[in-house]
């Protein structure tokens, strides 16, 4: 493998034929790349592809079990693989700055923000007196308003976005020659992540620092990098300019990544476009007036205890929406916009403060659990997190047939046969019936959760961020499954998502929420092509992968509207 073709300047970091092993297991295999000063390089790969191990090697922080088997890591001219811990430490912070993955856990909760930045400032040997001023400067440079006040605060008093900025300030405070950003966006809302990445990129480009972005999201990588490296199973399988990687991926793995990126590529949209996705019969039934679920003017207040005085927080404010039979209504918005509350009210897991919930013409707003129970058979829920939604002690057979058991349907032999049918419907082999959740992957678990929701043959399924916890390629498979099930069974979906790309692929209608209100709604293609509300426009602009499209001359949302059409 050759070194980077883009290396024009002297590289800050040069990795040559690096191989790292944990015992027998080879985590990184002959990886070579370089990051020149002032350039942005992105490494794309799924969890377990070896990208995080590569970063550990760059920082000289390989876990005790990890061993560099071959190759070298040159940082600032020194080979880190054969030096003492002392010399490795000299490199950390000073030469290579690190922005960790999750800002909510990346800062020490018991130390003030200022002190944590100061630790990095002091690494430069700044005189004691000028440390506080330099800390404020670093915080301000990372785009933090009122740095003097923030410096005195503790991490828990800051939002996720602010904490990420503090971490960026920390990484840059020691004036490193290279910054490594490890999955810089995965823990944040897309709009926040977008702003922060813009900022980081700006800082890096103006100061001549190199930037290495580690991500599982091809769209994030292609948006910002000068060079994209695709990693799989410890090897770099493809490298090149973003335009080339996106436009003509060579390696099958990259091709799949490009194809699977929701809304971003060549994924077969005919499968999901309303006319084709829904069978003729269901499409006919999908009249505007045939509504399965309707929320009418639903308002939900939460009481927030604040010392003696109680404060109410309005989570939902006069929300009305309707799900047409056989179609998908997507409810989108930032976290905290109230979309999950809306779903929980629709599911009657949460009592609305006012307004009505109407299921198939029946007002179920004031029904108790017992009176609602017969109707429960007709609408089911799929949770966001497939890891917690399955009882770890049960096997798959019992899991998928639990609703049948609850309603006393069938003998145990009949239920076992039902389990087989359900597994088949979600494309899991019958042999999986004996497995427990711990023995399944994330995607498989979500399939089991979907199978359970289908056990009672419902008409409506409420999907709460059904793929957000999954890897990109697995996301695509699960979404395909959902679309297929809808077509076969004429299901109606209420889909909650923050990812507009997911929505574009699957939904007939979309409702955009902001601060508890629905700010815009309509057919997906129409809303995405011509967004009226600012929230919609912002959400659309924040979808990664747009900048590559923009370079090609397409306006925001165009690609998504395309996909939804």
């Amino acid at each position, binding site marked *: 493998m050759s070194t980077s073709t883009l290396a024009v300047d002297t590289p800050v970091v040069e990795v040559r034929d690096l191989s790292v092993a944990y015992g027998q297991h080879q985590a990184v295999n002959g990886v070579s790349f370089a990051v020149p000063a002032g350039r942005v390089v992105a490494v794309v790969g799924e969890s377990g592809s070896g990208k995080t191990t590569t970063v550990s090697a760059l920082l000289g922080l390989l876990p005790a079990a990890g061993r560099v088997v071959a190759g070298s890591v040159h940082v600032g001219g020194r080979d880190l693989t054969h030096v003492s811990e002392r010399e490795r430490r000299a490199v950390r912070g000073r030469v290579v700055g690190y922005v960790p993955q999750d800002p909510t856990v990346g800062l020490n909760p018991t130390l003030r923000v200022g002190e944590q930045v100061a630790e990095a400032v002091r690494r430069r040997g700044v005189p004691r007196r000028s440390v506080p001023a330099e800390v404020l400067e670093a915080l301000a440079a990372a785009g933090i308003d009122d740095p003097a006040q923030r410096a005195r605060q503790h991490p828990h008093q800051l939002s996720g976005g602010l904490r990420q900025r503090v971490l960026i300030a920390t990484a840059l405070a020691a004036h490193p020659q290279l910054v490594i950003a490890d999955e810089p966006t995965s823990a944040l809302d897309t709009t926040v992540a977008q702003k922060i990445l813009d900022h980081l990129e700006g800082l890096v480009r103006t100061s001549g620092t190199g930037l290495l972005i580690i991500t599982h999201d091809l769209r994030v990588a292609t948006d910002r990098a000068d060079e994209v490296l695709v990693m799989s199973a410890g090897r770099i399988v493809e490298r090149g300019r973003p335009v080339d990687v996106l436009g003509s991926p060579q390696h099958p793995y990259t091709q799949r990544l490009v194809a699977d990126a929701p809304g971003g590529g060549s994924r077969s949209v005919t499968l999901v476009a309303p006319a084709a996705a829904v069978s003729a019969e269901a499409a006919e039934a999908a009249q505007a007036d045939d509504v399965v679920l309707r929320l009418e003017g639903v308002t939900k207040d939460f009481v927030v205890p604040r010392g003696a005085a109680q404060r109410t927080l309005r989570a939902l404010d006069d929300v009305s929406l309707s799900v047409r039979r056989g179609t998908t209504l997507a409810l989108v918005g930032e976290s905290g916009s109230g979309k999950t509350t809306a779903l929980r009210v629709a599911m009657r897991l949460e009592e609305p403060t006012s307004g009505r919930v109407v299921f198939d013409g029946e007002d179920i707003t004031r029904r108790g659990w017992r009176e609602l129970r017969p109707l429960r*058979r007709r609408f089911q829920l799929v949770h966001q997190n497939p890891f917690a939604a399955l009882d770890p002690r049960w096997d798959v057979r019992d899991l998928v047939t639990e609703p049948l058991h609850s309603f006393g349907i069938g003998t145990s032999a009949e239920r076992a046969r039902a389990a087989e049918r359900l597994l088949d419907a979600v494309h899991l082999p019958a042999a999986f019936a004996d497995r427990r959740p711990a023995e399944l992957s994330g995607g498989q678990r979500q399939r089991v959760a979907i199978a359970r929701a289908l056990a009672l043959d419902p008409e409506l399924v409420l999907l709460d961020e059904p793929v957000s916890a999954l890897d990109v390629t697995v996301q695509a498979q699960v979404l395909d499954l959902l679309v297929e099930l809808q077509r076969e069974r004429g299901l109606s979906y209420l889909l909650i998502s923050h990812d507009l790309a997911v929505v574009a692929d699957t939904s007939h209608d979309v409702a955009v929420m902001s601060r508890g209100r629905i700010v815009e709604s309509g057919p997906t293609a129409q809303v995405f092509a011509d967004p009226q509300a600012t929230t919609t426009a912002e959400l659309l602009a924040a979808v990664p992968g747009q900048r590559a499209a923009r370079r090609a001359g397409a306006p925001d949302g165009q690609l998504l509207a395309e996909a939804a059409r």
Partner: protein
Amino acid sequence: MTTLTSPTQTSHTTSTTTAAADATTAAAEPALLPGGRRSRRAQLLRRPGVVVAVLYVLLALGTAAVPGLYTGVDPQQPHPADKLLPPGGQYWFGTDELGRDLFARVVHGSALTVQATLVALAIAVVAGLLVGLVSGFCGGWVDVVLMRGVDVVLAIPTLLLSLTIITALGFGTVNVAIAVGVALVPGFARITRAEVLRVKTLPYIEAARSGGATWTSVLRRHVLPNTWGPVVVLAVLDVGTAILAVSSLSFLGFGAQPPHADWGSLIASGRTYLVTNPWLSLLPGLAVGLLVLSLNHVAKSLEEVAR
């Protein structure tokens, strides 16, 4: 050194490739954790320390069930010619001031101590589980009342609470068992409640409820089985605590009354001869210490494997 990559994450790599090669069927997706509970047990038994500990615990439990299997000697029988003999061939642990066989006395003393411990633990687990389940599951004022009660009992140091109960009930092995058991109830009540509260909010409970399951079936089929784990670990850990409490109380003179002797009272009566015949106290003490050490080791390994 810190770990950026966890070993599980990396061991995942090979299987991801398989998935990449054949992504059309969901079955090709990798499982995150190979093996379930069966492999856990195998994992435990592969540790030599655990095996030794388990064997010693079984040995001690055996003395409680059938002390006659270990020694045919009557622990009460004095041998006037063989007073205060050091450990040796005929008397493995030596003899006491009346010439009684110390090994036989330790074996039979173990029976008393282990039985008292088991009674204490039974009281603690049953009462604690009941209080914790009701408290966590019902919530509201029931929870408040029960948990304030538990807090109050916790405000009295454990051993002191046991002593108070003994003062009221009088001395003897059974009373010591009751006193220790009652003092352990709050711990079990708390952990059960915490587990119930944790499990209660998990999405699979919500999934079961929206799937039409009744609260009683949720309690029986989901909550109780998933609450067990930590309670069992605490029970194993607390066997050690209970043994220490039981033998401390009898060491202080509140347990088995002469001529019967459990471990604590054996050690106490040997104190008089500590200068000249230290084994009289130290050998029974070693027996207790090793048992508690073994139990703690088993509990700790259980917890490590369960994590």
